[in-house]
Structures are given as structure tokens and as C-alpha cells.
């Protein structure tokens, strides 16, 4: 395997009237060809900004820095906007969290689907159209040819999302960044899209970076998982390691929040993680999770907590020893 995406020490800063916000605080990860990396984490922890910074689509005021940011070995930081627009939608594509933010209400979906293909592939209108129809059918849209003339507002939420997925796949990218790609879809179509992504992944050796809140999807499709909290990666490992032996107290809490059919009683309170994420201004001075952690001690707030590597790809960011983390989890599950 070789890496299609390498990210080292990625930071995003947004200057605001009240100070400099640092929503992404030096994160490192890689995506291998043919691999699925899932990123999970609290709402607002910086997942979307991480993906936008890889695509160089950050909001204007935001500033990106990284030690390394490579797409198939090519340096993304050295590229000007023209070089980037050759890469974007072509070698790497993104499925956005909210379809309405990336579909243009003024153009038909046919126009929007064909546009990237015409630009990058020097194809004819007819070829572009055929490819659009082919992919719309693949994502489960019937009578695809007749949908090409419709505008985004005439489609249901799930249809819009599928149009976006088809759009991202138009040029057969090497890397796909999918931000909550199936949340607006029913589970039968979700399963179908996940099958489609897996097939393309096998055929094209496409790398997939999948951001999702749905731990069911993570469990079923991820090869590796990175858990983010407050702009940092707090735990990473293979999907088996993270689900069967979660180490970080935040990961452990997350896994207790989901209703599991047959296990959680209807109408009972679900597990939750009380409290809110700290403001992400300036540099960390302590464990960012300390204000919500049931195991916090004064040592946790004395200094920033570094990421402790355990083995290749397996790491966690907590001062507790591994054995203590495992014992804590066993006790919490039994309770």
C-alpha cells in the first residue's frame, strides 16, 4: 500500500475580533490507497475544517499551515489556485455535509454534474451526459435522464445528497473526502451507496476519508478510525482496536451514547457526556477534555497532554496508563 494522502501537523487559524481561533490544532494522519479512514468526533471539533483545508476551500479569513500536506506525493501547499482547481473535483473530490451549500440553485443538476467532467476530461457534452446518467443510476436515482433538467430545490434532501455523491465520482478521483455522505438517506439506500463506494474503492484503489457521526457506519466500513476532540486527534487505531478497546475517556463516552436496539430501554435516558467543548482560542494549556472527564485529576490540567503512540497507527491522548483506561471501560460497561 502507498499513501494517497499524508497530513502532518495541520493547523487552521481564524482571526476573530475576540482572539485567534485555532479549530484544528496540529493533527497528523494518512490515508492509504484503497483504504477507508473514518474520522469521528464531537460536533464543532474541526472535522469539516480539516477536510476543507485539504481541499484548500477554507473560509477566506482562515489560515492553514502544515509540515506536510501531500496528495499522492505531490505537495498541495505549493500549488497555486490554478493548480489546485486542476486537482479538485479531479484527483480528489469532496462530498459536502450540506448539499445546499455546494449545489448552485441557479443551475440544473445536469449542468452541475457535467461541468467538472467537461473541464478536466476534455470530453464531449454527450460523453459527460452519459457519465452523469450512469452515475445517477448507480446512486439509486431512477429515470436519471429526466432528472438532469431539474433544479436543486425540486429534489428531496436525499436526492440532493445523492446528486452530490455522483458529482464527486464524475472524474474517478484517487481520494474522496466524504463529510457525512449518507445522513440524509434511508438505510437501504445508505447500504447501497456504501457498497458503491467500496466497489469503486476496489476498482480504482481510491482512498476514502469518511467523516461521520454514525458509529454503525464506522464499525462496518472503516479500516482505521481517528477520534477528534476540540481540534485534536485524541485516539486512533484500527476499527477493531477502537471499538473493542477504546482507551480515551471521550471515545468510551461516545460509545455509550448510542441507543442499541434491544439493549437500551425505550424512553430511558441515553448515556451522554455532560458539558460543552471549551473555546478553541490560543494554545492548549491542559487536557482539553478535562472539564467533562469523570477521571480528571489536577495533573490533567497542569500541562497539555501529548499523544502517546502505542504501535503503528495506534495512539491515545490521556495521562492515564493503558491498563487504567481498560479497567475504567470495563467498569463503565458493567454498570
Amino acid at each position: 500500500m502507498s499513501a494517497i494522502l499524508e497530513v502532518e501537523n495541520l493547523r487552521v487559524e481564524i482571526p476573530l475580533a475576540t482572539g485567534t481561533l485555532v479549530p484544528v490544532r496540529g493533527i497528523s494522519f494518512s490515508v492509504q490507497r484503497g483504504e477507508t479512514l473514518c474520522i469521528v468526533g464531537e460536533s464543532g471539533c474541526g472535522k469539516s475544517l480539516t477536510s476543507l483545508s485539504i481541499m484548500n476551500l477554507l473560509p477566506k479569513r482562515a489560515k492553514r499551515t502544515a509540515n506536510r500536506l501531500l496528495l499522492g506525493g505531490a505537495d498541495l501547499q505549493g500549488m497555486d489556485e490554478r493548480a489546485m482547481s486542476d486537482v479538485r473535483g479531479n484527483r480528489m473530490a469532496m462530498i459536502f455535509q450540506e448539499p445546499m451549500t455546494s449545489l448552485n440553485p441557479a443551475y440544473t443538476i445536469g449542468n452541475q454534474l457535467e461541468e467538472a467532467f467537461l473541464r478536466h476530461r476534455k470530453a464531449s457534452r454527450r460523453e459527460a451526459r452519459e457519465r452523469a446518467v450512469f452515475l445517477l443510476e448507480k446512486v439509486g436515482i431512477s429515470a436519471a435522464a429526466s432528472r438532469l433538467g431539474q433544479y436543486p430545490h425540486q429534489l428531496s434532501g436525499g436526492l440532493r445528497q445523492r446528486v452530490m455523491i455522483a458529482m464527486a465520482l464524475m472524474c474517478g478521483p484517487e481520494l474522496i473526502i466524504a463529510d457525512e455522505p449518507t445522513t440524509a438517506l434511508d438505510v437501504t439506500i445508505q447500504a447501497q451507496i456504501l457498497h458503491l463506494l467500496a466497489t469503486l474503492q476496489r476498482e480504482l484503489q481510491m482512498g476514502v476519508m469518511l467523516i461521520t457521526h454514525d458509529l454503525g457506519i464506522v464499525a462496518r466500513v472503516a479500516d482505521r478510525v481517528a477520534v477528534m476532540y476540540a481540534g485534536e486527534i485524541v485516539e486512533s487505531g484500527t476499527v477493531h482496536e477502537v471499538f473493542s478497546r477504546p482507551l480515551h475517556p471521550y471515545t468510551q463516552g461516545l460509545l455509550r451514547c448510542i441507543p442499541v436496539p434491544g439493549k437500551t430501554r425505550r424512553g430511558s435516558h441515553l448515556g451522554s457526556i455532560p458539558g460543552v467543548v471549551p473555546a478553541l482560542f490560543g494554545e492548549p494549556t491542559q487536557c482539553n477534555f478535562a472539564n467533562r472527564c469523570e477521571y480528571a485529576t489536577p495533573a490533567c490540567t497542569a500541562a497539555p497532554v501529548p499523544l502517546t503512540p502505542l504501535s503503528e497507527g495506534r495512539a491515545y491522548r490521556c495521562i492515564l496508563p493503558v491498563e487504567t483506561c481498560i479497567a475504567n471501560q470495563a467498569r463503565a460497561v458493567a454498570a
Partner: protein
Amino acid sequence: MTPILETANVFRTFQVSTGFLKPKRPLHAVNGVSLRLAKGEVLGLVGESGCGKSTLAKMLLGLLPPTSGDILVSGQAITGLDRRATARRIQPIFQDPYSSLNPRKTIGDIIGLPLRVHRVGSAAERPAKVREMMDMVGLPHRYVGNYPSQLSGGQRQRVAIARALIMRPELVICDEPTSALDVSVQSQILNLLLDLQRELGLTYLLISHNLAVVEHMAHRVAVMYLGRIVEEAETDQLFRDPQHPYTRALLDSVLTPEPGLGVPDANLGTTFPNPIDPPSGCTFHPRCPHVMPVCRTIVPKPLATQTGHVECHLYDTALKQAS
């Protein structure tokens, strides 16, 4: 008791263009739906993407007139009611928080808007109410002066929820209320919705693709396919003993958080129905693993089950005897 909300045989048709210079054709987004919601009840509504759930929700909110059929709020036709009064009692939480929040208003303004529109409290009292709501949905007060574009997807969804609940409505129509949220916030919001329901006797129509959430929250569940309710039952029964083949396919496709199991295949094939040109007979027949000859020609009628009804020829004993 009069149900708080009732629909009787509601239809909604859109005229859609099928191509340049081609005539417009009707699309039956909602095709004869009858529902009842008792006070304090949570009704789950699930179904295929594009089957008409949001269209139905918009009609229940009075935002879209039905093509035919009646919608009654506490026994009165919604068309005869004052829009403002209805809005006070029925509030929406919409699917796409991005398009339902005004980008030029601050978070505080957005959450407080219903208070101003309905002239609740004095201008001096409102900020405190807004902050109280922000606490309830877990939004830090520091966001009060921010604009929607400065918030993450999940934070925007919490704004939408705070705005819907600030008027303490009787009925909340939740269209995918938590799909943009991470599981810890999702569990906070679901716990909040459950508490409010118990304390204030709220009634919810909960539209969601997350069947685990629906099972956790709803008393009854309605399953929709191509504009019709094809099965309705009490939650336990629906999850324990689904009748309609589409309901079964849905339940089989749920992804539980167990690594190594892969993504199941519901065996529904890839012939997706076109709502402009729906299949004859039972509209599910091109995808149904149990299809019979009669399914291609005769539309199934609702048949009573233990706790609800189902529309499928498999359960029609009269039909079985005849053939």
C-alpha cells in the same frame, strides 16, 4: 379524545418538467395519507428517501396546501385557522439547518425571533430566555452574536432546535432533528425532547432515517413508500415482527456498531421507482422479494394487523383463497 393532529386522505401533487419543451407531468409526492396523533404521543415516520415525508411535514405545518384531503388540528381544519396561532402551537425542526437559518441574523436573533413575532415577554426579558434555551440545547452563550456561517453543522442544528422549542409548542414536527449531530449531542437532544414531552406533554412527529432513534423515542411507527403509508404499528411490534417486505428490508439494512460484519445487502435490486411513472399494482413490486402475479395489477388495500395496518397482498386472506 380528539387527536391533536389528524389527516384524512391527504394528497399532494407537483407538476414537474421532464425535459426541455416536454409537457409538465404530475408527481404524486403524497398519495392518500391518513394519520392520527394523540396528545403526548410520539409517532415515528420512516421511509425511503424521496417518498414524501418532508412534503407531508410541510402540509402539517400549513406551509404547503394539500392538493386534496383534510388536515385537522384539534379537530379544526388547518385551512380555517390563523397562521400565527397555528405557528404558536405547531413548530418545525427542519432537515437542512443551513437553508432554514437566515444567514444575516445572529444566533441570538434567530432563536429569539419567535418571541418577538408573538410578542412574548418584554425586550428586556428576551435575552435571558434565549440564553436559557441555548443552555437546554447545549450551545455555549459565546455564540449568541455569531452568524450561522460561523457555526459547525451540528451547532446550526441546535440553533434550529432552540428556535423551535422557545415558544413551548404543543406539537413539534421533527424532520431529521439529529442527523447532523454527533452521538453525544444527539443523546442530549433526545433526552431533552423526552424530558419536555414528559413535563409539558409535548407531541412529536419524528421523521428519521435512524431506526435506532425511532425505536428509542416513538410509541408508534408509520412506514412510508412512494407517497403512501404501507405499514403502521406500535413500535415494539413493528421492530419485532415487521410485516411489509419494505419494512423488513429497512430493518435488515440497519448498521449496528459491530465491526467486522460489513454492510448488509437488503436484496432490493437496483430498479428504483420513478415517482412520475410509478409501477402498476403495488408500487413496491419491482423490488419486492415476495412479488406475486397479482401484485403487478392490483393495488393492495390497507389490512388491519394486531396494532395497526399493512398494505400488502401477502396478508390478504380473501385474495389468497380466490387464487
